[in-house]
């Protein structure tokens, strides 16, 4: 991994990618495993822990036939595949809300969801990813 990517992974809590290319062998599974596993990484002579969750959008899923590492339990446990099939072009409201109060509301709601649904939601997402990667 490059120095810039290491700094991004170790210095942020969320790393986003709008259009990730996951087909073929373009994404190294061991990198995903080390980031989500919070392994120690060497960034400019310092050893620090990766703390970022990765949120990416993709038109295709990893090819599990060519790269069977995606089927490992350790990887699937850290993976959440969320299908998007809604027609976004038919939305009546196309402007993303940018009100600060709305943003704080959403952040607080995320905390509420985590405390309310402690484990069941993410288990569903993992089972969904198992199904998608089958």
């Amino acid at each position, binding site marked *: 991994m490059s120095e810039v990517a290491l700094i991004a992974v170790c210095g942020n*809590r*969320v790393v*986003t990618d*709008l*259009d*990730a290319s*996951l087909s073929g062998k373009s994404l190294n599974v061991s990198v*995903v495993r080390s*980031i*989500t*596993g*919070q392994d120690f990484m060497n960034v400019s002579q310092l050893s620090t822990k990766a*703390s*970022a*969750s*990765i*949120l*990416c*959008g*993709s*038109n*295709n*899923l990893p090819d599990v036939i060519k790269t069977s590492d995606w089927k490992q339990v350790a990887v699937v446990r*850290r*993976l*959440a*595949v*969320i*299908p*998007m*099939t*809604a*027609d*976004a*072009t038919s*939305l009546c*409201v196309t402007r*993303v*809300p*940018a*009100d600060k*109060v*709305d*943003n704080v*509301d*959403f*952040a607080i*709601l*995320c*905390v509420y*969801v*985590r405390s309310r*649904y402690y484990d069941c*939601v*993410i288990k*569903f*997402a993992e089972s*969904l*990813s198992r199904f*998608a990667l089958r």
Partner: protein
Amino acid sequence: MSSNTNGDTLIFTKAARVVHDEVVVSDDVAGLCLMPLKSTVIPTQWSLHGVYEFIKSLFISDVELLALMWCMENAITDPIDTSKFVILYGGSGNGKSTVIKCVESAL
């Protein structure tokens, strides 16, 4: 409070009940109470507008949105214990980039 004074004697009369639930309290006591004796309705729902309502329309069901929010909570609170690799999967024009931009702006 409904009460009448008749000379030196304080006489309580029937009063309308303040608390309408199963609590067995005499009407006289209920008429004297300033605070409810028992709370029966707890607000559990509130109206959410803005980012949540906007994103909600892009998901098939609430479960997918809850899974995304569950993962994103990791970026808000300490300690960070479960990092996730979240893939929004779908064809073009399904709102993946829109959702990611919304989450970015909200966090």
